[in-house]
């Protein structure tokens, strides 16, 4: 895997370093991970896979815990 590559967050290309978590890529893009039931934008709270606030759609899979997953080249990430 290259040291630097791009992923797409909500259809916008974002350059990331190797070993960047998906949650970090979402933050670099200035995006939120998901919208809560009451309509609020949400982002990671615990950063360790417990709080489930960092869920987003990764390569089509809903409810992926983005703080627990690393970016790979060409990954498609979408807020959910």
């Amino acid at each position, binding site marked *: 895997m290259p040291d630097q590559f791009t992923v797409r967050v909500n259809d916008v290309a974002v350059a990331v370093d190797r070993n960047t978590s998906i949650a970090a890529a979402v933050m670099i893009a200035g995006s939120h991970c998901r919208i809560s*039931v009451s309509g609020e934008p949400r982002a990671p709270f615990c950063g360790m896979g417990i709080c489930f606030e960092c869920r987003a759609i990764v390569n089509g*899979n*809903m*409810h992926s815990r983005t703080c627990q997953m690393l970016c790979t080249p060409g990954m498609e990430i979408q807020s959910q």
Partner: protein
Amino acid sequence: MTIRCDAVVIGGGIVGAACAYELSRKGLQVVIVEREIIGGGTTAAGMGHIVVMDDSPAQLALTQYSQSLWNALSPSLPPPVEYDRCGTLWVAADEEEMAEVWRKHKLYKAIGVQSDVLDSASLAEAEPNLRRPMAGALLVSTDAVLYPPLAAAYLIEEAQRSGAALIQGKCVVAAKQGTVNMDDGTQISTPYIVHATGAAAVELLPNIPIRKRKGHLVITDRYPGFVRHQLVELGYLKSAHSVSTDSVAFNVQPRRTGQLLIGSSRQYGAEDPGVDHAILESMLKRACAYLPALGALSTIRAWTGFRAATPDKLPLIGPTEDPTVFLAAGHEGLGITTSLGTARLLADTLLKQPPAIPVEPYLPARFSVEAIHA
């Protein structure tokens, strides 16, 4: 301390709640006794499917009548009850099951229940996540889903608005001959005692012909649109009919939240409320066989509950040998649907009014008197 009232309803599940609602609206001074929380037992464990079922003519009559009552009540239900007329799709996997689709369709047409036959292609369009090819399905558009504990809570609140009193957190220790005794010494004197205690009925009525039939359910995270109707396999009839063996069937329900409820299992003689992983596994495998993409979804919880099953799969509604004791129990998997019809029939019986459908198939007297008498 002795309280006096016109009727005591024991049990604040959906059936007791509906009875309290109906009797209060008819002008009776009702006391409801719930030892734990409203709708917290079997009511909370089930799916909340308002469904017309035709295992027997009596079951069809009661479910159809009850569904019409839910339909009439639905505009009044508050949003948290999550009433959603999503319809049921009875899924036929093969031509044999497709014959059952046509049989149901003709039967429903004859009694005025709207249904539509979907061929293989229309079913694939209606539910893209179903395995292909399926033979087809029967769509019953008037079937609905709701969130049972809050439906029970709504009925209790309405009963209270009509003057009913709720006694919560106290346990009934005896209820016969016009007297209800509670564990704190409270006594209620009443002409009518209604046992609506479901699978727990044997605690006060040891010989009542009700057995626990254990079930499992799983709920997923939110995946809006994954399925659009309540999906039930027609093979379900074979497994639900079986009275002795453990069985599982494909039964998946979309919730307003986008979550999916996944069922179902049936076990007699399993008293342990813990999740049985072997049954859970075969239940989920069955579901994945119908919805192949289901396996990639996240589930957030699995739990069990106990249906109150009678030998002939019909509830016990009406009088007993003790002229003050009435039953509204034994609804097995249809308690949410048939609660409203049960309550209406019970109220008609108490108030000596003509019922909308014949009550005879549900009378406790169809079983031996010794079996019922406390």
